Structures are given as C-alpha cells and as structure tokens.
C-alpha cells in the first residue's frame, strides 16, 4: 500500500505497523504532527501529550522496561529537557524496543537555536538513524524497534524540519496493525536500579554494547556505497544525501543512514576507491570529525556548509569549488520588498497585556510561545527569551542582580508554565522574590497548532480530564497576591499590572482568554474608523494589530496617514477603540 506521507506521518505509520504500544510527546515544531497522527489510530497505541519532554522520555523508559515497544517524540531542544533520563536509561538499557524521534531545526525556522543533536546520540552512546526521506523514516523506525530490543539500546531517529515536513510516496506494506508481543517482565534490581554499585557494572556493559554496535553499523544495509564516476567521492547523511544526488548525480556516494556509531571501516574502503573524500552533512561536522579521527583524509572545503540548512544552491557552490570553476550565477531576488514577519493575530488575547507592559516600562523576561512575538515592534514588550520555562528563573536572576528597574515581570504561557514554569514559580514563592509572574493563559498550546494541555480539560484523544487552574497552583505555593484578569480591558490590566509590579512582593497575574484561532469569536460587532474624526495620531498602529491598515493621507505632505480597519480581519476585540483618544473608532454590525 502506497501513500503520500510526510516523514512525521510515516513515523506514525511505522509505530502502528511496528507494534508500538506506548507513545508520548511534548509538542514542538517540527515534530508535533507525529503524535497527532499516532492519535488518529484511535487507541491502538496508548498515547499522550506529556507535560514536558522529560516526563515523555521517562514514560518511554518505563514502557520499555515493562517489555513493550515505545516511541517518544520531541524537537531538538526538547531533548535537552529529557537528557537526564536518557543519559542513565542508556546505561540501564531498553527491553521493549525504544525509539526516540528527535527533530532538529537547521536554519532555526521555528526554534531558538540550531543545535545538532547527533552529538547527543554519541554522548548517550545510542544508535542514531538519519532518514533522508519519508520512506527511510518509516523503515528506520521499524528497524529501530528491532535493533533496540536486540542490543538493549535506545534508538534515536534524527529528522530535520526539511525531512519532517516533506511528503513523498511511502510503501507501508499491508497497512495493518503490527503485533509485537510484550517481553515478559522480570524484576531485576541489579539491571534496572541505577545506584553507584550497579551503575559501575552498567558502565562496562555500555562499552561492550558499543563494540557490538560498531560491528552492527559496518554490516547495516542502511550504510552503503553507491558507485559512480569521477575521482571525488561523497559521504552524506540525512537530507544532505538528496542534495548530493541532485547536484553530483554521477559521483560515487557513501550513504550513511545508521550514523552513530559511524561505519568508519566501510567508509575507509570507499575512500580507497576515490581520490578525494568530501563529507556533506547538515549542521555540525559530526561525521567528518569521526572519519578524520579514524585516520581517513577528508577534504575541508572553503564553502561554508555547517551553518543553516543546506540546499542545492549551496552544493552548487561546493561543486564549483571542487571542480575549480566559477560559482554558478544565482538568480537575484527583487530588492526593496518589505519583510513579512509573523505577528500576533488580530484579536489575540496577548496583545493588550503587552501594550500595558510596554506602557508601564516593565523589564519583561519572556518565554517560548506565540507570545514571544510580543518582542517585535511596535509592542516591543520583551527584554529576554532563553528557553522553555526560563522566563521566571531569568526574572529572579535580574531581581537578585539588583536590576535598576523595580518593575520586573516574567511572561509565560499556560503550556510552558505546566512544562517547566511551575518549578520557577515555586522558587519565587520559596525565596520570596518580588517579581510579577504573568501567565498568558489561553488554555491551549497555541504556537504549535492547538494541542491540548493540562489546562484545556481534554487529553490528546479529546477525552475530558482535569482542568488545572494556574491561580490555584500559585496560591497552593503560598503566593498571596494572585489575580485573574480578562485580556481586553486595558484600564483594568493597567491597574492590576501596576499594583503588582510596584507591590514589592511575589505576585501572579493570570491573563485569561482563549486563542482567537482556536475558539471562534461569537462577537456581533467589529470596529471601524471614522475618517472625519481620525486625526492620524498613529496610536492605534502602536498596538500592532494586522487588521489596522494605512488609510487616507492626512494632508498633502504624505507623511501621516489615517487608519482603516480591514473588516475581513477585525474580530471586534475593541483594543484599538480603547487606545483612541479621539473616539474615532466605533463598533459596527
């Protein structure tokens, strides 16, 4: 049976076909769709949105120890959160097949950094697969379950944004649910309890396993030489392989699919048949360094290949360098086309709070989510953003450092708060830090496309569940000043924010309002600008609403413009009317 599938979909199919019983994930672009597609198999796989990647990894570890096949998915930075369980579980070792899908994001399409997680597979002494398309992603997950069981090793599948979100045709066999009987559970503390005495034994076992994995990788069909002509041979992994085939169609290529441990002896034999060996891999020179360390000479091109996504144009440049030719002319983009960065949607429940934070000149430590867009002009209401949950810790640090601004706020979304903000808030309460933690609570994980979370009252499969109140959590931590406010009343937001920021004790403000993309508005009214009353003062432009566009020029100078509201995008949230001092913005049916 053949289907057009993205690698994310293909991975879900492989979980289904491979008899996976337990699947866990925290959403993160570009890995999110894996769990959404697993959920489409309606309970065939016990699956969940975990509250964070560490919990997701621990669930996979537990399922594996209980003897069933398990898959856990996350984006590259998610594995940072889950490294603690991984680094010791790799000692303990899998029993039921354990596949970790980890999606890197070269070019930072929607991430805060560009870390190459292949180094983490080396660090954790795991097996690592690098699919170059959807069919390989499918095949590698299936192989991953088997190898994980055979060698008792966690298996990492490293996708990238490009492979995860590229669709191609995949043969999924019969398409039927695969069966993999559970491996009977045996209580074995020496094996499964990582205390120093046991851990030392595990440490030696890991080395022994690594030696076996080096033999495995040399024999693996996923690592193969493809003959060609010419004296330059390429070693390529992941999607880089596809670019090499596109730009050097005749050249001999060594395709690395099982890339940790790398098949150095096979590569040595391949290198003996070519005059120059060039390694093409996306992000860090992980393979190149290991190949060189094995004493195999590798060409170091001048063409920069290690930052940002590769593409055929960059390989064409490499080609020119290797052949000593001039670089091919690149088509030039048109100049002076205005950039179009993503923005907070019209009607977004975050906009008003950012407007007030900006007005109050607060120092704002931000976090990861749609609301990070509040850092962009004209709102420009964010000072820092580090990683998931970091807003609160960063704000604590700023306060402790004696930051001259007494108004320090941490801004964090509901899903991020549940993920790793709660511990930071406990630190605020425990150490009595006078900062204000603002939770922008829309009861959904919005940025990644509206996944359920502990605040939304529904599970991954849409079943009703506990609906955790953030204000209750704050109060249970012992924080006395806790407010819950609506997002569209600017006067009240200003009053509450100012009170909290100036009160000199820990405070929490939960700004509650659904995501406008998720819960469609039943608002009867939208707003319009009265052109005669509008003075072109520009105040409404400063809330950064995409529904407010440039209207008629104020006068002949062409320097100032009145505003106009695009009825197609206005939601009637009424923020613009509240910032207009001239009452030029009024509701219409």
């Amino acid at each position: 049976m053949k289907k057009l599938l993205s690698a994310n979909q293909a991975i879900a199919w492989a979980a289904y076909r491979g008899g996976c019983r337990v699947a866990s994930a925290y959403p993160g672009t570009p890995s999110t769709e894996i769990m959404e597609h697993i959920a489409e198999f309606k309970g065939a796989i016990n699956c969940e949105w975990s509250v964070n990647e560490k919990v997701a990894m621990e669930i996979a570890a537990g399922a594996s120890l209980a003897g069933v096949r398990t898959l856990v998915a996350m984006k590259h930075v998610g594995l940072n959160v889950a490294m603690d369980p991984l680094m010791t579980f790799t000692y303990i070792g899998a029993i039921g097949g354990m596949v970790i899908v980890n999606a890197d994001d070269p070019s930072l399409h929607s991430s805060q950094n560009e870390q190459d997680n292949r180094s983490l597979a080396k660090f954790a002494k795991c097996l690592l697969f690098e699919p170059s398309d959807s069919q390989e992603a499918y095949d590698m997950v299936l192989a991953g379950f088997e190898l994980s069981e055979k060698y008792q090793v966690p298996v990492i599948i490293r996708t990238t944004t490009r492979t995860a979100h590229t669709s191609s045709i995949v043969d999924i066999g019969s398409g039927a649910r695969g069966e993999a009987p559970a491996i009977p559970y045996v209580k074995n503390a020496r094996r499964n309890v990582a205390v120093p005495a046991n851990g030392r034994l595990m440490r030696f076992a890991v080395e022994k396993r690594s030696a076996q994995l080096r033999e495995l990788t040399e024999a693996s069909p996923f690592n193969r030489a493809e003959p060609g002509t010419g004296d330059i041979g390429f070693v390529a992994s992941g999607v880089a392989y596809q670019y090499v085939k596109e730009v050097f169609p005749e050249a001999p290529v060594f395709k690395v699919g099982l890339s940790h441990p790398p098949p150095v002896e096979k590569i040595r034999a391949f290198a003996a048949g070519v005059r120059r060996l060039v390694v093409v891999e996306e992000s860090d020179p992980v393979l190149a360094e290991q190949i060189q360390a094995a004493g195999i000479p590798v060409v170091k091109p001048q063409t920069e290949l290690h930052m940002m996504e590769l593409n055929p144009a960059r390989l064409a440049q490499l080609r020119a360098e290797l052949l000593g030719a001039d670089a091919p002319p690149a088509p030039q983009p048109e100049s002076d086309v205005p950039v179009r960065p993503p923005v907070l949607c019209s009607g977004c429940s975050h906009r008003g709070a950012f407007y007030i934070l900006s007005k109050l000149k607060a120092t704002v430590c931000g976090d990861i989510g749609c609301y990070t867009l509040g850092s962009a002009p004209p709102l420009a209401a964010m000072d820092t953003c580090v990683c998931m949950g970091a807003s609160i810790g960063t704000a604590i640090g700023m306060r402790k450092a004696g930051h001259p601004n007494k108004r320090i706020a941490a801004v964090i979304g509901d899903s991020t708060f549940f993920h790793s903000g709660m511990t930071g808030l406990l630190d605020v309460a425990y150490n009595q830090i006078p900062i204000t933690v603002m939770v922008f609570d829309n009861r959904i994980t919005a940025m990644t496309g509206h996944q359920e979370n502990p605040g939304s009252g529904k599970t991954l499969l849409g079943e009703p569940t506990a609906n955790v109140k953030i204000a209750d959590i704050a109060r249970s931590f012992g924080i006395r000043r806790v407010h819950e406010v609506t997002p569209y009343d600017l006067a009240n937001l200003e009053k509450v924010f100012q009170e909290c920021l100036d009160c000199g004790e820990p405070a929490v403000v939960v700004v509650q309002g659904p995501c406008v993309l998720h819960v469609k508005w039943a608002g009867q009214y939208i707003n319009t600008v009265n052109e005669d009353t509008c003075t072109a003062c520009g105040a409404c432009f400063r809330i950064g609403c995409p529904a407010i566009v440039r209207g008629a020029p104020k006068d002949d100078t062409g320097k100032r413009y009145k505003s106009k509201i695009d009825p197609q995008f206005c939601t009637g949230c009424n923020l613009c009317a509240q910032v207009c001092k001239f009452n030029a913005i009024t509701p219409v049916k």
Partner: protein
Amino acid sequence: MSTTDTRNLRFNISLVGVGGQGILLTSDIIAMAAMHAGYQVKKSEIHGMSQRGGSVISQVRFGPKVHSPIIPDGQSDVLVSFERTEALRWAHLARPGAKIIVNNMDRIPVSVSSGLQPAAQNVDARLAAYPGLILLNANPLARQAGNLRTANIVVMGALSKYVPFEEEHWQAAMQERIPAKLLDVNLRAFTLGRTAIP
C-alpha cells in the same frame, strides 16, 4: 503530450503567499494529483509560523525520480503566488520565462501599515516585467463559486492549465483531500480558475 513524454518530465512548482491563504492545502492536492498521475513526487513546506501572518512557501516537484525536496532558485516551472508582494519577493524562484500566476490582491504587512517599513514600490510595473505573468482576479471568482475562502482553489484551477495532469487526477486528489461537504464549492472554484485561462 503523450503518456511516455509526461512520464519523463521533471516539473517544479513553487507556491507562496501569506499564512492562512490555503497554500498548504493547495500543495497537498497538487502532490496527490502528481501521485495519481503516476509520478514520483516530493512536497516540501515551511509552516512553523504559518498561521501568524508570516510569509509561507511550499514546493512540489515531480518526475521519474526526485531527490532534493528544495527546488533550486531559478528552476521553478511555475510560480504560484496568492498575493502580489509575495510574488515579487519570490520571483527569483521562477526560471526565465516561467508562468507566474498571481492572485491579484494585496495583504499589507503590519510593519508597513504601522509605518515601520516602507511598502514595496511600483509593484504593478515590476511584476509586469516578467513575461510569464498571469494576474488572476481569484477572489471574485471564489465568491462566484460560493466561498471567498476557495480563492486558493481558483488559483489552482488556473495552474492546472500548465501542469501535465489529466482532469481526473485533479478531481481524485481533491476528493481525497477536501472534506465532502466542501467538495462541491471547491470543484466549482477549480473549474472557474481553469476556464479563466484561455
């Protein structure tokens, strides 16, 4: 074109626009139609922030064998843009003389409407400099079909005149990808777009 010819054809389509304009659905349908027509196909998209009004791009390549999911700049056989400024931004993707099908509408970036950066100048003239330009008034045609939100399918109908699939392949792909209750209005939109090209 005979069947043998089309099987050996390599074809690249780039689709660009603004988040929320239906680019990803459109490219899904094109890729499925390519599969129905018997090609190898890759469809690649960057959609992390697609719902937040950012610039969105999706690329579909088909042929006897497809390697790179990314189409090299200057090698798209057709560039489809759902908005005029985006057509300008991505015009360099098209090969010289390629058809550039543009929905004749503007979505002003917020940073322009709020005065943070200047608008693109002389968009009409700069677009007209491309000999393959086809400006399509897709929005009125979508309204005529029965739903403004089918403007993307109107544009796809126009595109279909330049892509070597049989009409049945388009129909099969649309049936597969579009929910049943919206199928009729979309099929009407497709036909209106297809017949808008002489």
